[in-house]
C-alpha cells in the first residue's frame, strides 16, 4: 500500500488532505454555524454614520459626486468599495486586523479580537493580515479625524515624517482636500474598523451637525 499508486493517490493524496480539512476547516465551520454572517448594511452603525456624514460636509462636492447623500445605504456601498480598495492596494500586507491577547497588545490597540467581529460580509475573505510594518487597524475607527486620514493617505510623511508608508495620490483629485470616490470609501472603511465596540474612543466630540450650523 505504501508504495502503490492507489495508496499514494487515495490515502496520502485524498485521504490525508481531507483529514486535515476536517480539523482545520470543518470544525470551525461547525463551531461558528450559529453565528450569522452580517451584510454591509447590517454593520453600519451610528458612530460610522457620524463619520460618513462628516465626510459629506467636509468634502461636499467630492462626496456628492461619489455617493450622493449620506444615507445608510450609501454608507454600506462605501464600506464595500472601501474594503476593495484596502484589499487591492495591499494595505493588509503591512497592517493586521486582529489584536492578540499577548505582548501588551490590548494596552496598545484596544480590546482583544473576538470571533463575532469577523462574521460579516466585509471580512470575506478575512483581513487578518500576517505582517505589521504599520500598526494594527482593527481598532482604528474614531482615533483620527477624516481630514487626518485624507492628508495621511495623500502623503503620509506630512503627518508622520518617519513613516515608510507609500503615498496614494490616486485616491484624490490632485489635492488632499479633494478625495475621489475610492479615497472617500477607504476613509469610511477605516473609520468603520472597531466602531462596533463599546471601547470606541471619543477623541473628537461628536457634535450635532444641525446645531453647529446654527451657530
Amino acid at each position, binding site marked *: 500500500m505504501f508504495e502503490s499508486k492507489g495508496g499514494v*493517490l487515495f490515502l496520502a493524496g485524498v485521504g490525508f488532505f481531507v483529514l486535515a480539512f476536517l480539523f482545520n476547516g470543518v470544525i470551525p465551520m461547525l463551531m461558528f454555524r450559529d453565528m450569522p454572517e452580517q451584510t454591509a448594511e447590517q454593520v453600519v452603525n451610528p458612530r460610522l454614520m457620524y463619520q460618513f456624514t462628516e465626510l459629506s460636509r467636509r468634502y461636499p462636492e467630492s462626496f456628492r459626486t461619489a455617493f450622493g447623500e449620506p444615507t445608510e445605504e450609501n454608507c454600506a456601498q462605501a464600506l464595500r468599495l472601501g474594503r476593495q480598495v484596502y484589499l487591492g492596494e495591499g494595505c493588509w500586507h503591512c497592517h493586521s486586523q486582529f489584536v492578540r491577547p499577548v505582548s*501588551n497588545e490590548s494596552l496598545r490597540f484596544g480590546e482583544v479580537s473576538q470571533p463575532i467581529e469577523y462574521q460579516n460580509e466585509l471580512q470575506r475573505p478575512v483581513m487578518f493580515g500576517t505582517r505589521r510594518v504599520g500598526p494594527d487597524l482593527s481598532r482604528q475607527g474614531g482615533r483620527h479625524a477624516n481630514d487626518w486620514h485624507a492628508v495621511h493617505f495623500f502623503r503620509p510623511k506630512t503627518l508622520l515624517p518617519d513613516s515608510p508608508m*507609500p503615498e496614494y495620490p490616486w485616491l484624490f483629485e490632485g489635492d488632499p482636500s479633494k478625495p475621489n470616490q475610492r479615497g472617500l470609501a477607504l476613509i469610511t472603511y477605516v473609520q468603520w474598523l472597531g466602531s462596533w465596540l463599546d471601547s470606541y474612543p471619543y477623541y473628537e466630540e461628536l457634535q450635532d451637525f444641525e446645531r453647529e450650523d446654527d451657530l
Partner: protein
Amino acid sequence: MNESDQATAAEPRHEDLVDERLVRWYFLAALLYLGVSMTGGLLMALQLVHWNPLNGIEIFSPGRWRFIHTNAVAYGFLANAFLGMLHWTVPRLTLHRVGSVKLSYFIFGAWQVIVLSTAAAFIVGPTLQAQPWVANLTASLQIPFSLGAQGIEWGETPFWIDPVALLGLVLVGVNFMVPIAKAKGPLYVTLWYFMAMFVWTPLTYAMGNFLPEYMVPGVNAGAVGGLFIHDLVGLFVTPLGWGMMYYIVPILLKKPIWSHGLSLVGFWGLAFFYPLQGIHHFLYTPIPMFLQYHAVISTIAVEFVVATVVINFIGTLWGDGRMIVTNLPLRWFYTGMIYYFITCFQCALQVTLTFQKLIHFTDWVVGHAHLVMFGVFSMWIFGFMTYLFPRLLNRPWYSRNLCEWHFWLSASGVFIMFLDLGLAGVFQGYYWAALFPWDVSVNGSQPFWVVRVFAGLMMFGGFLCFVYNLWKTYRGYAPAAATAPAPAVAPA
C-alpha cells in the same frame, strides 16, 4: 523502475520521451518571472528605507507590487520551472511520453496567459474598482468582488482567473498521470511525491480560492486561508522539490539513495503531518485555541520527519563529500537542503506560542519565508537548471566562473537576508511589547532594512550572472556537436 521491463523491452530513446524545447521554454519563462518578482521585491525594500524613486506612481505602487512579488515567484517562477522539470523527469522515470504533447503546449500557453493576466489585474484592477456595475454586482450578490487581488495571501489570483487556473492544474495532473499509470511495478520515490502532488495541488487551490471567497466567512475563512498558505508550500512546492531531489541526487552521485525505509518515512510523514498545521499561521487569532494547539503539535512532529529525510540524504552523500566542491549542481542541492533543515528547525521553535508572542507580525517571518522559497526551492531549481541547461543547449556553460558567482551571491545573499530579518524581527517584537511609540519600531528597523536591500541586490546580482551566462551560452558560440549528450535514460 521495473528491472525486468528494461531487460525485455528495448529502452526508448531520450528524444522520443522528452520534448526538450518545452523544457527550455518553461525554464526561460520561469527566469523571466523571477526577474519580475525580484524587481518587485527591490521596489518594496527601497520603499521601506525611504529610497523608492517611484513613490506616488499608481502602477508602481509597492502595495500592488507586493502581490506581483509573491505571485510571480509561486505561479510564475516555481510553477513554470517545476513544470519544465516534470517534463524532463517523468517521461525518463516512467519510460513513457506525457499524455499528449499538444496538451503540454496548450498548458504552457494557457499558464502564461494566467500568470500575465493575474499580474495585469493586480496593477489595473484596483484602479477600475470604482465602477457602478461592480458595486451593483457586489450589492446584489453580497459577495465582495475584487477586480484586483483576492484577499487570500498567496491566493491573490483574481476570482475570475481562479477557475481557469484550477482547470490548468487538473490538466497538468492528467497529462503526467498517463505515463505514470502506464509504468509497471513499484514506483520510485520521486513519483510518489509527484503523484500525491497532482492530487494535492488542485484540491488545495480549490479550497483556498473558493471557500473563503464564497462559502465561509470570518474567522473560519482565516482557518481555511491559513491551511491554504500552508498547503501551497507543503503540498505543491515541497513534494515537487523533494521529488526532484530524489531524482537528481542519485544521478549526480551515481549511487542509490542510502535508505529506502527512510524515504518511506519521509514521504508518509510529510503527507500525514504537513496538512494538519495550517492554523499555525494565525496563532492567537480568534480561531479556537484547541485547534491552534493541534497545529503547533503537528508542526513540531513534522520536524522529526524532516530530520529523517535530511539524514537519508547525508547518508547518501557519505564518502563523496568532496563532490560538493567540484560538482556545482550537487552543491546547489545540498546547500539548499542545509537551508531546508535550518528553516524547518526554526519552524519547530517559532511555532511555539512562547516564540509567537514575540516574533509574529515581525520581519522574522519574512526572513523565514525568504529562506524557504529562495534559499531552498529556488536554489534547488537553480541547481537543476545548472545541470540541465548544458544538456538542453548541447554545449557546456559559457563560464564556470559566472556559475560560481551565481551560487555564492545567491547562497550568501539569502542567508544574510535571513539573519538580518530574523534579528530585525526580535527587535521589532520587543519594541512593540515594551509599548514604545510605533515610530520607534520603524526607525529601529532602518539599519536592518538597509542591509536587506543589499542582501537582495546580491541575490539579484547572482540572478543577473546566471542570465548573462545563459545568454552567452545560448548565443556565444556555435553548437559543438554533442559535447554534452543527454545521459542514458533510467537512472534509478
